[in-house]
């Protein structure tokens, strides 16, 4: 017997949270409908992890921007999940044009190909509009990618900045959240504290493309001005942006991510853990 409260005092509070409150009870358990709703969220998150990035679909959305394809050293998803180290290294000799460029934008599948596919191209185009005068490298689509895969890619192209747009670890209610990671003078061995992240890019529930584009453009211009990304740049960010803009300092906190990363959810391999 499922019992859903008739006059629900939670109703007034429910608008304040997406948490699954006031679900009712069947005995001590969840009512059938709440169970199925949970299962749907989990299924969508699982599919976001395991569905390969459709590179053709992304290429069709980039308005003629030249595109390069790369792959990390993780040959498949099962290996990718077990070996984050392989996801940070480029496979073989990638055929990338050498710059110099001001900025290399990389769209990586990360842990949610859905996020990369849904928002990656739109955000890249938004940024192109906001950065007149910047020389942009061909767009790179990266498969089985971790955040740090952007370093060897941008280094190979001689780009001053690497911007990795990558699918964040999917949650039950948010399977298509994109994270953006900015690194100056990218090269293998860059530490997470040297990056800035704008997380939870997920219109219409999270940051919109325009909001994310505005923050990232500010970070790029300010980063170029002060010659740094990471902690120094984070501290210069307008206070109102702080919840969504953070450096990647934290040592991986297995127990809980520190706040910024929690909102971030985001380095493409689990929010709490730098890739």
């Amino acid at each position, binding site marked *: 017997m499922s019992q859903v409260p008739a006059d629900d005092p939670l109703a007034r509070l429910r608008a304040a949270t997406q*948490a699954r409150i006031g679900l009712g009870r069947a005995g001590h358990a969840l009512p059938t409908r709440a169970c199925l709703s949970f299962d749907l969220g989990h299924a969508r998150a699982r599919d976001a992890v395991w569905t390969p990035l459709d590179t053709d679909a992304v290429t069709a959305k980039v308005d003629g921007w030249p595109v390069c394809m790369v792959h990390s050293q993780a040959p498949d998803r099962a290996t990718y999940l077990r070996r984050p180290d392989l996801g940070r290294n480029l496979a073989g000799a990638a055929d990338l044009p050498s710059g110099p460029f001001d900025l290399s934008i990389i769209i990586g599948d990360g842990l949610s190909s859905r996020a990369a596919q849904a928002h990656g191209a739109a955000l890249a185009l938004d940024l192109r509009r906001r950065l007149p005068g910047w020389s942009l490298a061909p767009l790179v689509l990266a498969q089985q990618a971790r955040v740090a895969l952007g370093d060897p890619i941008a280094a190979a192209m001689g780009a001053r900045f690497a911007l990795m747009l990558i699918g964040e670890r999917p949650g039950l209610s948010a399977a298509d959240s994109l994270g953006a990671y900015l690194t100056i003078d990218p090269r293998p061995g860059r530490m997470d504290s040297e990056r800035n992240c704008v997380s939870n890019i997920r219109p219409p529930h999270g940051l919109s493309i325009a909001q994310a584009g505005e923050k990232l453009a500010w970070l790029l211009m300010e980063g170029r001005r002060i010659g740094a990304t990471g902690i120094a740049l984070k501290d210069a960010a307008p206070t109102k942006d702080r919840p969504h803009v953070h450096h990647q300092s934290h040592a991986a906190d297995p127990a809980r991510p520190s706040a910024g990363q929690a909102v971030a959810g985001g380095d493409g391999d689990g929010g709490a853990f730098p890739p």
Partner: protein
Amino acid sequence: MYRIDLAGTRHCFPDLKALLAAATPLRSGDQLAGIAAQSEEARVAARHILADLPLKTFLSETVVPYEDDEVTRLIIDRHDPAAFAPVASLTVGEFRDWLLNDKVRARELSALSPGLTAEMVAALSKLMRNQDLIAVARKARVVSRFRTSIGLRGRLAVRLQPNHPTDDPAGIAASILDGLLHGSGDAVIGINPATDNVDGAITLLHLIDDLRLRYAIPTQSCVLTHVTNSLQAIERGAPVDLVFQSVAGTEGANRGFGIDLALLAEAHDAALSLKRGSIGQDVMYFETGQGSALSAGAHHGVDQQTLEVRAQAVARAFNPLLVNSVVGFIGPEYLYDGRQIIRAGLEDHFTGKLLGLPMGVDVCYTNHAEADQNDMDNLLTLLGVAGVSFVIGVPGADDIMLNYQSTSFHDALYVRDVLGVRPAPEFEAWLGNMGMLDTHGRVAPRDIATLPLARAIADQRFMTP
């Protein structure tokens, strides 16, 4: 060098940490670190050697050098030889048999725990099947107190975890109300803040404390922010009941968390000075998780389960009210699937209890692990049988801030019902006074709209930050 000839094959392990790593049940984190057993046969060979190893070995041989690591020094320096005496002559295998004996009960286990080092307990657990981990943990009794009693026999508490992605007070209050109406919150009402700063933490501390005082809820509050933030909050007069910190099993990994033992001691003293507990002054809350040291690049080639027990040894030094492993949170590169998560959850609970910790477990997983809610049902039920002190309660098992799945308020009701365990006594009495229990003492599935608590909280106004 440790070696054994088994069924015509010679197996060699260069040192103690290699032996411990090889003896560990398979998990992806040890594979990632390149220290897992080379074969199934090698794993069993390592266990054979381990079974014959005297427990005393762990007092003279360390897995992380004493000179280099303050966690090792803590473990060795705090070892109590008198408490150790009853088992001092045993090997690891004999110790397992001793623990499983009927005559060894809660009193013997409590007396023994100061005599056990983290590495002894880790080695022991590698020889134990899941049922052994359950059977021995079930015998242990560790009770801690602040405003409720945690760990009494026949009781199972719940940490109410009302997280919100923007720390919105009304959103958090909604989840707190939902949890209270399901009989959750007796371990702690503990928020992981989305914004990591002192002002935010203080706002949230006042939010919980005001609710607690207004409705006379016998529980404690905690904002799970960095220990340095809690120290500042205390200095600024905020109502800090429990100081939280994530801890790891090596000095280097703790440095990655921005802590050391001296800082934890300072925070412990600061929280004690507030004297906010009513029935006890256990003021610390620690979380741990297998894989943290590897993730921080500070694992010294030691397997993740041994390091987890060392993290528990850190927690033990500060008389915590609550300690839990966040077992499946760290992701599949450390615990790949439901099977590995379940094993690790049982290990962490067992080793913590044997060391004398008030152990709970965040029974949880992420969406990129090969696990689902059925695995969590299994682990929750097994831990309930093992006598887990507390579990986590999240609305609908979906943490919308940390993006992972834990156990729900409903899950807590389920496990209390099927195992006949009850909330902490102080909290249970409050539930009764609030009209939330039926004649059998169960949280009644009634029309919550009629409950005065529900009305009162729902009608309350909350500030928007």
